[in-house]
């Protein structure tokens, strides 16, 4: 019997290990795992490689070999997950995806630039191309790109360079460099400038010996060797030690068991070290950085994607460690300000509400964070702690947090004509001489409103009253203040200070005619009831009314395509959040679509959006 159980165990174990997710490196910080790959059968490879999440690996694919091929034609096994991952450590950045293989011949028609490399791993084939590596184990594959960090490459290169007795490689000493800022003349930029001529005077020369590598040649070699070393280390972990994200992170492993079309995983605690804003702490005050990192322990965002007939539901759980969670819990323990809903018109094509208690958040953050900062033995920090403690004692916190309570809302009220002034040239019919006159003009403008809950309306009134004395641009009217030409030097900004709200808007109609809210035309009671019941953040976007008017020209090509892929659809997006505990907050994003494209395309669009915002 024991043998039989062992046999069953081994069978399930071996089956488990044939899955694509077991090739996800443990250094991956962000993972999108698409479970129901069948949805993607009709997606063409050409479409797939256009997505942002493919950008790191797409160079090899987007060379014609994908032309008119679908994922199915590419030999992908639709019974396995497709996992897209990204990770960044101090030493390297890695990205790629893992997938199942049903037909390796078809696969290599797409991955036609890969050459087989010698493999030291049993039953594993390793392929390489200029940028990427393809690793095939049984019927699963890992396509990976690993790039050592420039800091690591520079450090190694410099070390070798100086050890060889070379001098400073750039032709001048640190002290000689003139740090005067140069104004970049874009007009004068010539594309050929990007190619550095080997004859350039700035090119560092090692010595007179032409067989000796110059600095950049040495750096290239170091980069290549580091890349090989990092890949080898990663593959040893994956293929010899069986150390992957599934085996090293029980949360991720559990996430994969969810019966949904796709899952999302982002380990904020591990990505913290790569946050540029913390670089100073990391290098100058490592013990403080360690404490901050501890604060973020357990900060993980998990998501499940459910595809329904005409909608995609994205359930997100933001998990926190105990200390950070206690701050969030206090911050989000706030009664919903019902005044807010009066100012959201039922016809608004987009709105959000954000309901927090800044006073409670401050008190808790002070309680949690001050002991951490105070324990740091650093004179600068000590002075900051002193300043904080004095401010805490001296500032009137009642006045401060009644002026800015933390709750707010925003709406997009569509496009309206706003009155502006323009200079018009008029001509004398006798002489064709011309003069200037100021005339009224109208320009289209997006109308938005942003409002804050306030308990001390008298305080902004003091500010506005005094600004009104300084400049005639500030004018007080019965129900509102107006700041002329505040928006882009052309349109007025209205401020409404009523009903325990301080509202900024460029909506003349709201300021002049609805300063007490939209009354019966505000959000329906049913929605208000739901908003009161739910958590700290809620939102709604009517894609037809909002994204269809988004200026996608401002985005790069792929992102613009992403927005464009949502255009023409009449879908709606809803964001809801749960009450926050000291462990987590749950969010639900519902994307209702009525487009004609297949569901897989919608799913990838959403995955791509999440990838862009999480990267």
């Amino acid at each position, binding site marked *: 019997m024991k043998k039989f159980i062992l046999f069953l165990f081994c069978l399930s174990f071996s089956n488990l290990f044939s899955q694509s997710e077991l090739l996800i490196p443990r250094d991956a910080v962000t993972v999108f795992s698409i479970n129901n790959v069948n949805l993607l059968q009709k997606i063409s490879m050409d479409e797939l490689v256009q997505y942002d999440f493919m950008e790191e690996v797409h160079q090899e694919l987007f060379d014609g070999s994908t032309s008119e091929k679908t994922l199915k034609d590419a030999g992908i096994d639709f019974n396995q997950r497709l996992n897209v991952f990204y990770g960044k450590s101090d030493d390297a950045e890695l990205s790629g995806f893992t997938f199942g293989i049903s037909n390796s011949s078809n696969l290599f028609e797409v991955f036609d630039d890969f050459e087989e490399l010698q493999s030291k791993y049993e039953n594993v084939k390793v392929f390489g191309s200029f940028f990427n590596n393809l690793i095939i184990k049984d019927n699963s594959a890992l396509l990976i790109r690993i790039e050592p960090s420039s800091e690591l490459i520079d450090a190694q290169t410099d070390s070798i360079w100086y050890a060889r007795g070379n001098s400073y490689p750039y032709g001048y000493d640190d002290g000689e460099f003139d740090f005067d800022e140069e*104004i*970049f003349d*874009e*007009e*004068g*930029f*010539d594309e050929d400038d990007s190619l550095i001529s080997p004859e350039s005077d700035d090119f560092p020369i090692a010595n007179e010996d032409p067989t000796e590598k110059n600095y950049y040649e040495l750096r290239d070699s170091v980069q290549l060797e580091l890349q090989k070393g990092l890949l080898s280390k990663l593959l040893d972990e994956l293929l010899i030690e069986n150390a992957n994200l599934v085996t090293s992170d029980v949360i991720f492993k559990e996430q994969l068991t969810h019966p949904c079309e796709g899952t999302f995983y982002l380990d904020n605690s591990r990505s913290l070290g790569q946050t540029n804003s913390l670089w100073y702490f990391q290098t100058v005050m490592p013990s403080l950085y360690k404490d901050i990192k501890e604060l973020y322990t357990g900060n993980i965002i998990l998501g499940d994607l459910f595809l329904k007939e005409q909608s995609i539901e994205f359930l997100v759980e933001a998990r926190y460690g105990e200390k950070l969670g206690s701050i969030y819990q206090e911050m989000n323990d706030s009664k919903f300000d019902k005044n807010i809903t009066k100012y959201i018109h039922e016809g608004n094509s987009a709105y959000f509400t954000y309901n927090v208690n800044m006073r409670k958040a401050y008190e808790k953050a002070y309680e949690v964070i001050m002991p951490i900062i105070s324990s740091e033995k650093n004179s600068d920090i000590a002075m900051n702690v002193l300043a904080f403690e004095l401010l805490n004692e001296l500032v009137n916190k009642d006045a401060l947090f009644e002026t800015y309570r933390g709750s707010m809302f925003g709406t997009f009220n569509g*496009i309206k004509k*706003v009155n*502006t*002034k*323009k*200079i*018009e*040239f008029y*001509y004398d*019919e*006798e*002489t*064709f001489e*011309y003069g200037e006159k100021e005339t009224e*003009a109208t*320009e*289209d*403008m*997006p109308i*938005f409103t942003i409002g804050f809950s306030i308990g001390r309306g008298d305080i902004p009134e003091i500010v506005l009253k005094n600004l009104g004395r300084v400049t005639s641009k500030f004018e007080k009217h019965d129900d509102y203040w107006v700041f002329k030409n505040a*928006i*882009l*030097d*052309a*349109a007025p900004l209205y401020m409404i200070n009523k009903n325990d709200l301080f509202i900024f808007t460029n909506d003349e109609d709201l300021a002049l005619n609805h300063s007490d809210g939209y009354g019966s035309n505000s959000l329906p009671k049913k929605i208000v009831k739901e908003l009161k019941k739910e958590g700290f953040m809620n939102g709604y976007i009517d894609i037809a009314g909002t994204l269809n*008017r*988004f*200026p996608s*020209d*401002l985005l*790069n*090509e792929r992102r613009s395509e992403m927005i464009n892929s949502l255009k023409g659809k009449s879908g709606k997006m809803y964001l809801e959040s749960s009450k926050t505990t000291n462990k987590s907050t749950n969010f639900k994003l519902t994307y209702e679509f009525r487009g004609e494209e297949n569901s897989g395309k919608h799913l990838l669009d959403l995955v791509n959006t999440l990838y862009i915002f999480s990267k």
Partner: protein
Amino acid sequence: MNKILFFFISLPLLFSSCIELIDDLTVHNDGSGTFKYTLNLSASKIKVNSILALDSLDGKKVPSMAEIKAKANSFAANLKTQAGITNVTMSINDADLIIKLSFDFNSILNFKNGLEAAVASIRSSNQGEELNHNWISWDGKTLKRNSPLMSLTISEQLKETDLDLLKTGSYTTISRFDRAIDKVEQSNTKINPARTAAMLKVNTYDLQKNNSLLDNCIYLTPLKNK
């Protein structure tokens, strides 16, 4: 927060704009004269200011108002150094978005060469070829003007959506003389009652579609012998 700000800032770019261009050329009998050029974007303040608020647009760097002023001043400074060019003035009204340039020249050839050289000085080496043709000529009795190809070359690079923005714009070209105009080739040209000035106004969108709309040949009456 930056993404939200970006969203709000970028939204105004959806909307139409209006551009007004006036070029006013006075040619005296001896070939000397004055050139005045006006670019009026005051009717598009929201659009232009929203663009200027961005770092980049469509993958290209958006210059700041200070950089635009510096470029304009550099152009004017170069123009001052050109042979036969005097009294160069450049003014930029950044509140109403109106740019004005005016200068005197002592011959049409100096006007042509000076303007070409000043334009070339602020453009990169592979640009400016659009001026390498005979876009203006004067023989003492006939002024021949072609389309402002410099502007057209820029507009050719615009996308169809951008071109729509030109629909509400206008380009007015005025030519003034010491003596009466005999006839003009472009039938849409208006001539003042004294017949000393010709004005041709076209829509900027139409001009982009048809480069020859501003081409004109203005014939003057013969000089009276003293």
